[in-house]
């Protein structure tokens, strides 16, 4: 609370609930407010920076996915136009060449889209993993 004096005479009291239970002078309160304001400003700046970073990360992921979707869509359109671009005999040859290719011979190191490539891994020697228990889904299942 603050005692108000006018020309040396006590004229009343002012109560500050913010500092209730504490012994704080006006100058200390001012200093505290200034420090709090500075700290709040630092916290806001840091929070803003984090929010911007998270937003940027999220939008960059979406952008990549969007680009990949567009690429696949373009590819699909081109595939659909194949009939109009190539004469039938060329298409037949292309189809035959495609079928000759062994699908398993596709390079495992090649990245398709955003997915990492499929790479088989052999178990370390001596690894023995038992299969899980398997049950019928319902009592009357065969």
């Amino acid at each position, binding site marked *: 609370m603050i005692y108000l004096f006018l020309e040396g005479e006590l004229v009343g009291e002012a109560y500050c609930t913010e500092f209730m239970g504490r012994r704080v002078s006006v100058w200390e309160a001012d200093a505290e407010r200034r420090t709090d304001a500075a700290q709040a400003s630092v916290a806001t700046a840091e929070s803003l920076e984090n929010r911007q970073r998270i937003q940027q990360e999220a939008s960059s992921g979406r952008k990549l996915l969007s680009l990949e979707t567009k690429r696949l869509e373009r590819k699909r359109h081109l595939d659909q136009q194949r009939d109009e671009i190539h004469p039938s005999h060329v298409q037949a040859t292309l189809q035959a060449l495609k079928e000759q290719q062994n*699908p398993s011979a596709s390079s495992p190191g090649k990245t398709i*889209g955003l*997915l*990492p490539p*499929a790479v088989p891994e052999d178990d370390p020697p001596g690894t023995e993993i038992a299969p899980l228990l398997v049950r019928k889904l319902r009592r009357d299942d065969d």
Partner: protein
Amino acid sequence: MTEPLSSSPRPLFVLHQKFFETAFERRFQGFLRQAWKERSWHVIAAVPGSGKSLGIADLLLQSGAYKDATTGTTRLPILAIRAPKNAAREQALGMALSAAFGVVPSMPWAQRRTWLVQILASTGVECIIIDDAQDLNPLHLALLKELTDNLAAPPYERHVGLCLVAAHSDNVIPFKETFARPDVLWKQFRRRMATENPYCVVPGHTEEEVRRISITFEDLYRSQLPDLQLHRWTKTIFTWLINPILDPDATGRVTMDHLSRLVTTSLRRAYEHGATDIDAATLQAVAELMILRRDEITQIDRSLDGAEVG
């Protein structure tokens, strides 16, 4: 390993619909069993597609429920129902509970409330499991409290466990906020929740757990794909299935639904191409379909037998 078999046409690919006792199911069912044994109340959450409903159905089969044909006595230690959808009234939950006992007798709602308590007691219900509990509303929860309170009071004096099994996302646990509200009903509900682990999340599968599931798939489909070595692709499959598109909450775990879809679709494709094992291209194509092209729209301008339509 992927060479076609003989030129004679192969029979159609047979999909095996089985329940795998996976690590997730052991964790999930283990918790349900504990709630059943201790008659405690819990909210159990897992991401959609984890296998919660299958786990509940399997637990029900193992619960020892029976109906004696001679005496007509029914024993139903676990009462499992699915939360009513788009039905805000408490009667909807009452009817779902009634239906779990078989034929639903016709009676006024006020009478059914009493009948439900009687039949819960007479069939020896020890634990109530509600699947899709995220669809329950305050009226449903109030009815659950009323029924279980009446069951716990004389003359029945039977305490039952309650498991609200819910699908969750964004790392938000269903009911946690609701039960923390100051209203009397929620305070009472909260008091009934277990002291230990009132809210639980059951995570999906780790890479090692996926390996074991792959080995089980190999055994299951060995007759159709004799050289199947699915477990060699475990690391790749795990990496694909924790892609942010399939795992938006970044749990770093794999759900059984995604794993089954990837594996069975790949196996079917490999089988239809005459292969005896799975290969990188088939797996990658299916993964791409599931992850990158899952929203693609297919135009069906042919009938299934390949003939032009129209």
